[in-house]
Every structure is written in C-alpha cells, then in structure tokens.
C-alpha cells in the first residue's frame, strides 16, 4: 500500500468502494499464476473446441478419401497431418474422432464421480456397518486391475461405445468412492457437524449442505485427474477392438488401424497417440493447478 491515512477521517474516506473479489476470481488468480497450467488450459480449449466444431472446422469429412491420396506424409499440401491407408485426411478424422474419445473420457468420470461420490459420502458419514458393506463391496471390484476389469466388462457386454462408457464407469467408481469416503470421514469429525446436529438438522441436510461442500474440491480434483486416465482406458479398449466399428473415427481405434503402417509412415501413425497424450497431459496439469488453487481459504 502506498497510501497512508493520517487521520481517522482520511482512513474513513479511503475505505474501498469496490466489493471484495469473489471466490471464483481468487481461484482464477491463483490458478493463472502457473504458466504450465495456463498453456495446458489453452491446448485443451483448442482441442475441445475444434473437436466439438469438427463439421465446420475439419477440411474433409471423416470418411471421404481417394485411394490415390493414400499414405501422404505430414505437411503434405491439403493434408496437414497426412492421410491413412485409405487416403482419408488424418486431421479431419482426429477432429471427428476426438468427439467420441473426449466423450468416452469425460462421461464415465462424471458418472462414476456421481455414483462413487454418493456411495463414499454415505459410507464415510454413517460409518459402522453401512461403511463396511459399501466399502468392502467396492474393494471386491477394486481388487481387479482396472484395465483388466474394463476389458472383461467390455468383452462381456460386446463392442460399442456405450459399453465402453459403462465399463469405464464401473472401473472408476471404487477409487472415487475411496476418496469421498476418507474425505467424508474427516469432515464428520469436525465440530461444525456436531453443531449442525445439535441445531436439529437431519443427516440428509447435513450431508447436502456441509459434507458435500467440504469434500467437493477433493473429489473434483481427483476426478479431473482421472479424465486423462479414462481417456486412455477408453482408447485402449477401442485399440483392442472393443469400441467403435469402422469407419467411425476414434483416437484409440485409429491408433490400432494405423499401427500396421508404422514402418511405412511412422510419423503419421503416432498422430492419434500424440493427441491422446497431449489431452491427458493437459488435463493432468490443469487439475493439478486447480487443486492448489482450490486450497485458498476464502
């Protein structure tokens, strides 16, 4: 502060007129202090927007291509990221494919956060038998390696994007539930919960207004960090042929298709992989910075 009040009247006149900065603004300030997070957010925004707007942004349709144009290199005229074995434009397919890939990365995490979060909170808040039944049942699911379980469920349900989303959701429920349970257990011990109980509030109201609020940032940060993982699981399932059927583009599926060309045109082959990597890295950086930014007290 450069201004010094010398008298009481001065001090009174110096009272700030503007309102205090809102919580959202404070979080944004803390977040934007990290350059890596800002860059990651920018990359993410570009990827998400161009995928969502693929029909307007993409130079070609996802399935159109001339066999004469096949296997063009990155940077070829008209085909920025080259073409695949059927002459289809890789960039266009990446953009169209990203819609499915992002959806299968985000939706299971969203669903599993809702289900797992609710289960975890109930287990953590009530404790005792409720906790034992819920958490031990989830342990059974959790005891399988995640990817193996996802493959198992997908294989049992049959190929298709819906089944990938279902199996990824099931796989991600236990870890979210664990985070929510341990966070809810912590919150349960706080005196403000006792205060709420003594005011006559029921368990439902306490959970809705106190517990959810106080575990939200922990669950949110964990879930956002899972989007990247989920994206890879979903792509992995597609790569194994459990996802979409041709000619629908999807990053993992494209990677699978292009892998035969790795000796012919290695740079083009890894393009879908690069996008999976970039998206999931950016998501992790953003969620990391967000978790720190949410720590601020006001």
């Amino acid at each position, binding site marked *: 502060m450069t201004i010094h009040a010398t008298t009481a009247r001065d001090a009174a006149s110096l009272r700030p007129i503007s309102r*205090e900065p809102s919580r959202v603004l404070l979080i944004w300030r803390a977040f934007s202090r990290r350059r890596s997070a800002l860059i990651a957010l920018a990359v993410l925004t570009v990827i998400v927007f161009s995928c969502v707007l693929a029909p307007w942004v993409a130079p070609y349709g996802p399935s159109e291509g001339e066999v004469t144009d096949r296997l063009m290199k990155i940077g070829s005229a008209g085909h920025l990221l080259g073409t695949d074995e059927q002459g289809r434009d890789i960039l266009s397919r990446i953009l169209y494919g990203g819609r499915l890939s992002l959806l299968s990365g985000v939706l299971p995490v969203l669903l599993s956060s809702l289900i797992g979060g609710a289960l975890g909170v109930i287990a953590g808040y009530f404790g005792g038998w409720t906790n034992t039944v819920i958490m031990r049942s989830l342990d059974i699911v959790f005891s399988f390696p995640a990817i193996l379980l996802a493959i198992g469920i997908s294989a049992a349900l049959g190929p298709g994007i819906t089944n990938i989303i279902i199996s990824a959701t099931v796989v991600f429920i236990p870890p979210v539930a664990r985070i929510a349970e341990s966070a809810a257990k912590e919150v349960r011990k706080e005196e403000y919960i006792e205060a709420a109980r*003594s005011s006559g509030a029921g368990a439902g109201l306490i959970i809705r207004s106190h517990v959810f609020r106080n575990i939200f940032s922990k669950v949110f940060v964990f879930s956002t960090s899972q989007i990247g993982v989920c994206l890879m699981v979903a792509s992995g399932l597609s790569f194994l042929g459990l996802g979409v059927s041709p000619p629908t583009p999807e990053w993992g599926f494209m990677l699978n298709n292009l892998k035969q060309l790795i000796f012919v045109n290695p740079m083009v082959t890894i393009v879908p992989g690069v996008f999976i990597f970039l998206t999931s890295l950016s998501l992790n950086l953003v969620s990391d910075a967000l978790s720190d930014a949410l720590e601020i007290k*006001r």
Partner: protein
Amino acid sequence: MDNILEVKDIGKTFQVRSLLGRVKGGVSAVDRVSFSLGAQGTLGIVGESGCGKSTLARLLMRLIEPDAGEVNYRGRNVLDLSGASLKEVRRQLQMVFQNPYSSIDPKMSVLNNVAFSLWANGVSRQQARKTAYEYLDAVGLSRTHADRMPGSLSGGQRQRVAIARALVLKPEIVIADEAVSALDKSVQAQVLNLFQDLKKEFALSLIFISHDLHVVEYMSDEVMVMYLGRVVEKGPTERIFNHPAHPYTRALLASAPSLEVDRAAGSGAPALSGDLPSPLNPPSGCRFRTRCPMATERCAMETPELTAVGPGHQAACLLLKESLTA
C-alpha cells in the same frame, strides 16, 4: 430461582474393544454426575483436560447418548424424547464449541453458517438470512463480515460467529465448552464480556466449561469441579474460591497462576504433581487418591459421596468427613 435444568446421575462409559471386536474394558468418561442450573444462572465446570467436561456437555446435548441418568429440562426428561419433540428441546439447548477453526464450516459464508441452524428448523431461506444478520449484529459483526468466507476471519471473530449461531435458535441454555481457550488473552476478555452482555440481553442460562479457573470465577454463580469423570466439589463461586474443601480443588487453585499473592485459598496446599491417571483403569475408591497429598488406605476402599460442607457447598472426600466429625 427456579431450576431450568436438572441433571441426575448421568454417566457414560466408552467401550474399548480389542482387535477382534471383543469388549476389553470401559473408559468411564462421566460417572454419576448430578447438578442443577438455575434460570439465568451460570454454572462453571472446571477440571483438567480429560476429566470429562466436554463429554458431559455432549451428553447433555445428546450428541453422545448417555448410558444412565436423567436430563430434565423444565420437568421433561430429554433422554426420553425422540423425533420432533427432541428437535424442539434441542433448540433450547445450544452449544458453543471449543475450536473456532473447526466449529465453523469453512466452505459456507459466515451468514450461511449462522442461517443454517434456522434452515434446519424449517425457516425459509430469506427469513433465515434476515434473522442471521440481526444476530451477527448482536455479537458485533458487521454486514461486510457476513458475506465473507470464514477463512478470512480471526479466531475471535470466528468465535463470535459460533456464538451467533448458538443464539439464533433463541435457546434458553447455552453450553460454552472451552469457548475462549483457543483465543488470545486480550480477545478472551472481549468474548467473555460478550457472553455476559448477551446473557442479560437474551435472558440466557449458561453452562461455562473451562480449565481456566480465572475464566470460571469471572463468569459463574456456581462452580462444579470435576476429576476423572466425577464431581469432587460444587458450590457457590465465592465459597469454592475462598473456602475450597476438597484437596483437589485446593491443589488446583494453588497451581493456578495468580497476581493476588495473599490469596487465602491456595496458600499452603501443594501444587498438583503427576499426570491424570488413565480413565481406562481409574483408581479404586476415591479417584484422586493417587495424586492426593493426604490420601490414606481408606481412600482406596471407599468411594466418597458428595456431602455438605457449607451452605450450598458440597464436596466428595472421605478425609473431610473425618475432620469434620473429629
């Protein structure tokens, strides 16, 4: 003066289980405690940490279910109530907690923290906010504080929020559990005076729990001294502090730092030494005997009962009876 709250032989033993879930033993946290609280009176409860003061407060609030005893609020036993009638009685008994950093939801604005109690009792959001503003004003917090998150408040301000939250349900009895212990001395004085003012303004009865003798002396009409879950002495504040009867009370007073050098009470009594014995295996007979400078063999065999030692003044010590009869 009518008694608004009468507590009879209330007790709680926490079971300790072994790894396999078998009951190994019990921690007797509160043992047959009885007292009464006069309308608009203040009862101070003192004792070292771990003596069961906070458990007692939670038993009264039914935050922990007591094993035995009665809590009669205006002639109704609170322990028999459930559902709507319990909710109704609960609003009459509110509590200010020890740690202002844990007793306020950090993710709710100050105003909503106070208004929450009203929502829980079916008051509309808008009306609850309006009332909450009034009570924040009553504890000396302005509107600019009300919209903030608790993180930006000091300990003293937070405790004011906690007090406002306790008062907003218009209780008749407020239990303050170590309500000023976490605060700086200078802030303590402010909050204590606030309690005094609010007590008059809202015609409250107070139960003031503290390990700080000066705080209790300043606040209370009556004092109850607890040791390892039992009441060892109770009586009017003035008598307890000037004519303490129980060896524990005397030692406690002697160990309290005081500026008044020639205080009659503590002088002569040796200060306390050693730690509080584990409540898991409390000493037989008189629980204080292991640290009592005057303990005899008899103290290990007989459990002392509270007996009158003066007007409205009771103490639980076997030696006292002897010295009186002798």
